[in-house]
């Protein structure tokens, strides 16, 4: 059946209501997994709490496996889904700046919203910061435009760029994830305990 709304199996008006419901589930899961506390989030960079790595990797692996199974069984057609476009240097430079922002502020946009929801003032300041960042980007758009629009390689997937079959890739990615989980537990035992 593929993506239901684009295939008009669900009328377009439901799009907004579904957005709200998905957001509620997303917020609930993030907050319940502990993503509303910036110190827990920053743990991934300092080794005292790898919750970000575990949740993030498991979510990626589960969603890839799930979508590949559904694509194989014909429930969803991956070709119709929105594939994030690849702007090579935009992703690299933007990613590094986001990494710096992540380790400096301790949040990312989704988790900062969770922090705001449970009353964290630093999360509110973080969201204001994000808005200022967006404002800076928009004002200096002419300066950032070449990176923003440059090196566009289309909505390509790993299959096009690495030429590997998705099934083999997801197997290696899963094994890599499990090894990362085990390693993260070893690292956490050795690193100095941080109570928060």
């Amino acid at each position, binding site marked *: 059946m593929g993506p239901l709304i684009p295939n008009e199996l669900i009328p377009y008006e439901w799009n907004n209501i579904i957005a709200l419901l998905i957001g509620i589930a997303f917020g609930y899961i993030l907050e319940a997994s*502990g993503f509303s506390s910036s110190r827990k989030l920053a743990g991934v960079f300092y080794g005292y*709490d790898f*919750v970000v790595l575990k949740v993030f990797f498991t979510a990626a692996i*589960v969603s890839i496996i799930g979508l590949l*199974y559904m694509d194989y*069984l014909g429930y969803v057609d991956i070709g119709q889904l929105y594939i994030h476009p690849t702007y090579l240097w935009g992703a690299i430079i933007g990613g590094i700046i986001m990494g710096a922002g992540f380790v400096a502020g301790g949040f990312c946009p989704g988790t900062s919203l969770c922090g705001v929801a449970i009353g964290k003032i630093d999360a509110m300041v973080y969201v204001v910061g994000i808005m200022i960042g967006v404002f800076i980007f928009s004002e200096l758009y002419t300066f950032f435009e070449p990176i923003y629009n440059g090196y566009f390689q289309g909505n390509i997937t790993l299959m096009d760029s690495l030429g590997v079959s998705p099934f083999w890739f997801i197997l290696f990615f899963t094994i890599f994830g499990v090894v990362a989980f085990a390693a993260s537990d070893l690292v*956490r035992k050795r690193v100095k305990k941080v109570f928060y």
Partner: protein
Amino acid sequence: MKELEKTKRISIAAILAILAIVIAVLSFKKPKHLYAINTKDTLEKITTYDYFISLDKINNPDYVLVDLRNQHEFDKGHLKGAIHVYAPEILSEINSDILKDLKENSKKIILYATNPNEAISSYMLLYQLGYDDIKILCVENSYHQNKLITKMLV
């Protein structure tokens, strides 16, 4: 890290997930009839390739005549040596087996019905299913005091 010790929920969820996958995969039946050629190539082929064959060229051992009309018309009169595959049931078990082993021992399938207009849809369907060695007999069948007269069309 007390949350790592609470593994009851994750174990149940993981088992449910793997069960769902196993059930979905087992209950999945690969569709029997798959198109072998997409619509663009089909269009290209049928607008260039000549799929007609005239009546005098069919006495060849590995040509097989296939009559697409219904059982009654077939019994009333059909071309010599024609086998009967009723068009609307072309995908049924028996018929697809017949056509499959025709294709296996590389027999050329020649479809005919009362006139080519009737046979074209079955031809298109079979062609897209991968029977590329297939032609239409351009002939007009009619009955005169229920004796079959086949008139050659140009």
